C-alpha cells in the first residue's frame, strides 16, 4: 500500500514540474531566441510476485524543441541580409550626397555653364552675360566641392561603422565565450542549460547580421566560431578582432591580437569595408575626373582666345587646382570679367568663336568617352542604381528569412493557447494525484481503525 503514496507523490511532482515548464513557456512566449520546452516522462514499474506493477511516473528530462538545421540556414541568410542592409544604408547616404529631387544636381550645373558660354557667343560684349557666366562657373565649382565633401562625410561614417561593428562583434564573442562556460559545465552534469542555449541562439542571430562565420559544437557542448577560417571563439576563450585603418589609402586591415589576418566576406562588416575601400573611392575618382577634364578642356580652348581688355591668353579655371575638392575659376577672371575669352582674335570684341567652341564641348565625348553631362548623370545615378538592385534582392532575401523563421517558429515557438490547454491538463493531473493520495490516506485510516 505504501506504493500508493509513492505513485501519487511522483504524480504530484511530475504535474508540478510540467506546470512550471508550461508557465515558463507562456511567460517567455515573446522572448527573442526562446525555444519552448517539454517535460519528458516515463512510467516506473517493477516485477512483484510475478506481476509487473506500475510505480508512478518519472521525469526523464526537460527537452528544448528547436531545429538546429533551420538555424544554420537562417544564419546564412541573415548574414547576406546584414550585408545588403548595410550597403543599402550607405548607398542611401551616397545617393543623398550626389542627387536630389530639387533639380540642382551636377548635370544641371554643367549644362548651365555650357549655356552661359553659348549665350556669351551671341553677344560677347554684354556684361550681364559675362557676370552670369562667372556666377554659373562658381556655382559649378562649389557644387563639385560640396559633393566631394559629402562623399568624405559618408566615408567617415562608413569607417566609424566598421570600427563600431568590430566592437560589437568582439562584445558578442565575449558573451558567447561566457555562455560556453555555463553550457559546458551544465553539460558535464548532464543537465543542459536551456536558458544559456536560448541566449546563445539570440547572440548568434545578432552575430550573423554583422559578419559571416562558421560554427562547430564540440562534444562537451562548447561552441567554436570561425570567421574567414580563423578561429575566434573556442570554449570559454575568444580572440579580439582589431581594425587597423589607413584613411589615406582608404583601406582596412582586420587582425587578431596575435597578428593573424581576419578576412570577413559577408555581413554588415564586410559591406562597410567594401563601400569604404571601393565604392566611395571609385565615386571620388569619377567626380575628380569630371573636375580634371573640365579644367584641362576648358583651359585649352580658353587659352587660345582673348578677352575684351587685352591680348593676353588666360586659363578659365585655375590650373593649379584640378580636383573636385578644390576646382576654382581663375582669380584674374573673377577680378575682371572682361578677361573671359570669347574671341578667337585679339581685339575683336564681337567675335564669339572661342565662347561657342567652349559651348560645343558639351557635345564632345571627352570624359572617358562620354559627353560631360551624360557622364555626370551616370555618376549621380550610380548609387541609386545600386540601391534599387539591392532593395529588390533584399526583399527576396527578407521573404526567405521570413519563411525560415516561420518554420523555426512552428518548431520552437510558444503557442499560448496550446500551453493554456496543457495548463488545464496538468492541473487536472495534479488534482488526480492528490485524490489518489487522499484515498491512500483513507485506506490507512481504515486499516488503523481495525487495530484499535
Amino acid at each position, binding site marked *: 500500500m505504501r506504493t500508493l503514496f509513492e505513485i501519487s507523490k511522483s504524480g504530484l511532482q511530475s504535474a508540478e514540474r510540467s506546470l512550471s515548464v508550461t508557465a515558463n513557456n507562456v511567460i517567455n512566449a515573446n522572448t527573442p531566441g526562446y525555444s519552448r520546452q517539454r517535460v519528458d516522462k516515463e512510467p516506473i514499474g517493477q516485477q512483484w510476485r510475478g506481476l509487473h506493477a506500475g510505480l508512478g511516473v518519472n521525469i526523464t528530462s526537460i527537452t528544448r524543441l528547436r531545429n538546429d538545421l533551420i538555424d544554420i540556414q537562417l544564419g546564412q541568410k541573415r548574414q547576406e541580409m546584414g550585408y545588403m542592409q548595410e550597403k543599402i544604408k550607405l548607398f542611401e547616404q551616397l545617393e543623398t550626397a550626389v542627387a536630389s529631387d530639387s533639380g540642382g544636381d551636377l548635370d544641371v550645373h554643367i*549644362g548651365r555653364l555650357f*549655356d552661359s558660354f553659348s549665350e556669351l557667343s551671341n*553677344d560677347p560684349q554684354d556684361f550681364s552675360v559675362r557676370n552670369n557666366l562667372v556666377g554659373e562657373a562658381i556655382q559649378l565649382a562649389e557644387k563639385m566641392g560640396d559633393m566631394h565633401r559629402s562623399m568624405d562625410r559618408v566615408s567617415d561614417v562608413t569607417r566609424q561603422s566598421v570600427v563600431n561593428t568590430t566592437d560589437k562583434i568582439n562584445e558578442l564573442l565575449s558573451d558567447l565565450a561566457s555562455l560556453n562556460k555555463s553550457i559546458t559545465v551544465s553539460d558535464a552534469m548532464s543537465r543542459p542549460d536551456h536558458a544559456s542555449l536560448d541566449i546563445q541562439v539570440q547572440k548568434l542571430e545578432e552575430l550573423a547580421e554583422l559578419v559571416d562565420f562558421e560554427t562547430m559544437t564540440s562534444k562537451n557542448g562548447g561552441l567554436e566560431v570561425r570567421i574567414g577560417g580563423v578561429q575566434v571563439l573556442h570554449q570559454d576563450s575568444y580572440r579580439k578582432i582589431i581594425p587597423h585603418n589607413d584613411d589615406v589609402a582608404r583601406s582596412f586591415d582586420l587582425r587578431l591580437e596575435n597578428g593573424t589576418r581576419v578576412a570577413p566576406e559577408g555581413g554588415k562588416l564586410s559591406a562597410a569595408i567594401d563601400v569604404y575601400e571601393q565604392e566611395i573611392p571609385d565615386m571620388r575618382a569619377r567626380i575628380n575626373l569630371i573636375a580634371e577634364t573640365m579644367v584641362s578642356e576648358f583651359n585649352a580652348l580658353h587659352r587660345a582666345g582673348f578677352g575684351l581688355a587685352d591680348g593676353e591668353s588666360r586659363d578659365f579655371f585655375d590650373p593649379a587646382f584640378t580636383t573636385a575638392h578644390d576646382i576654382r575659376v581663375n582669380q584674374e577672371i573673377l577680378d575682371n570679367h572682361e578677361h573671359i575669352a570669347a*574671341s578667337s582674335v585679339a581685339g*575683336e570684341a564681337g567675335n564669339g568663336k572661342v565662347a561657342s567652341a567652349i*559651348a560645343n564641348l*558639351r557635345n564632345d565625348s571627352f570624359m572617358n568617352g562620354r559627353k560631360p553631362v551624360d557622364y555626370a548623370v551616370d555618376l549621380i545615378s550610380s548609387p541609386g542604381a545600386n540601391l*534599387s538592385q539591392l532593395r529588390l534582392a533584399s526583399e527576396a532575401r527578407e521573404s526567405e528569412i521570413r519563411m525560415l523563421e516561420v518554420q523555426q517558429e*512552428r518548431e520552437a515557438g510558444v503557442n499560448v493557447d496550446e500551453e493554456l490547454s496543457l495548463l488545464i491538463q496538468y492541473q487536472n493531473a495534479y488534482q488526480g494525484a492528490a485524490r489518489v493520495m487522499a484515498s491512500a490516506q483513507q485506506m490507512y485510516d481504515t486499516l488503523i481503525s481495525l487495530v484499535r
Partner: protein
Amino acid sequence: MRITQKIIFDDFMRDINKNRSQMAGIQSDLSSGKRVRIPSQDPISFQRSRILEENIRKQEQYQNNISSGLRQGRLAQEALDETIDSLIEVKRILTHGATDTSRDKVRESMAQEIAGIRDTIVMTLNSSYGDRYLFGGTNSAAEPLTFDEAAPGGVTNNSNATAPRIQAGDQMFVDISITATELRDTAAGDLFAVIGNIEQALRDNDTGALNQMMGDITETIDHTAILASRLGNNINRLEFMNEQYESTNIVLKSNVSELVDTDFAKAFSDMQRTQIAFESAMAVHTQMIHNTLLDYL
C-alpha cells in the same frame, strides 16, 4: 501545423508595413506629381530623363541664341532698308541734277543734300545693339564708320569682313548682320566714294560725269538690296528653326514626362487597392487577437 501567436502577429505587422510603405509611395507620387524623383526609384528612367533634359536645355539655349540673333538681325535689316531708301534718294537727286535744265545753284544745294544723305547713311550704319555696333563685323566695339576727309568718300571704315554670328544648332552658325566692309565694296567701287563722286560732280556742274554715274548708283542700290535679302534669308531661316525647336521641344518634354511623371489614373487605382488590403488586414487582425483560450479560463 502549429501556428503560434507570434507567427500571426509578425505576419500581420509585416503585411501592414508593406501596405503602409506602398501607400506612402503612392501618396508622394500623387502629391509631387512625379514617379521618379531620385535615381534609386528607377535608375534607367532617371538617367534617360536627365539626358533628355540636357537635350532640352541645349535646344532652349539655341532658341535663346536665335531670339538674340533675330533681335540683332532685324535691327540690321531695318538699317539696310533705310540705307537703300537713302541710296534711292541719291539716285533721284542725281537724275534731277543730270538734266541740263537744272541751274547751277540748284546743283549746289543738291550736292549739300547728298552730303546730308551720306551723313544719314553713316549714322544708320553706326546703329548698335547694346554695346555692339551691328555693322562692325566682329570688330564691334568701335564705330564702323567715322568721318575723315582723307578717306575714300570722306568716311573711314573700321569694320572687318567677319560678320557676327550666332549658334543655332550643333555645328550650325548663322550670320546675323552684314559688315560695313562688305556693304561698301560694290562692283562700282566704294559706296561712299560713289556718293562722294556724285556730290563732287554736282558741285562741278559736270552733267556728263553725272550721267555716267547713274549706272554706279544703280549698282550700289542693287548691291545693298542683295545683301539685305541675304540677311532676310538668314532671318527667315532662324524663324523657321525656332518653330522647329518649339515642336521638338514638345516631343522631348512629353518623353521626359512619360519617364518620370505620375500616371494619375494608375496611381489612384493602386491607392484604392492597397487601401482595401490595409483596411481588411486591420479589421481581421483586431478580430483575430480576441480568439484566445485566455478569455475562457
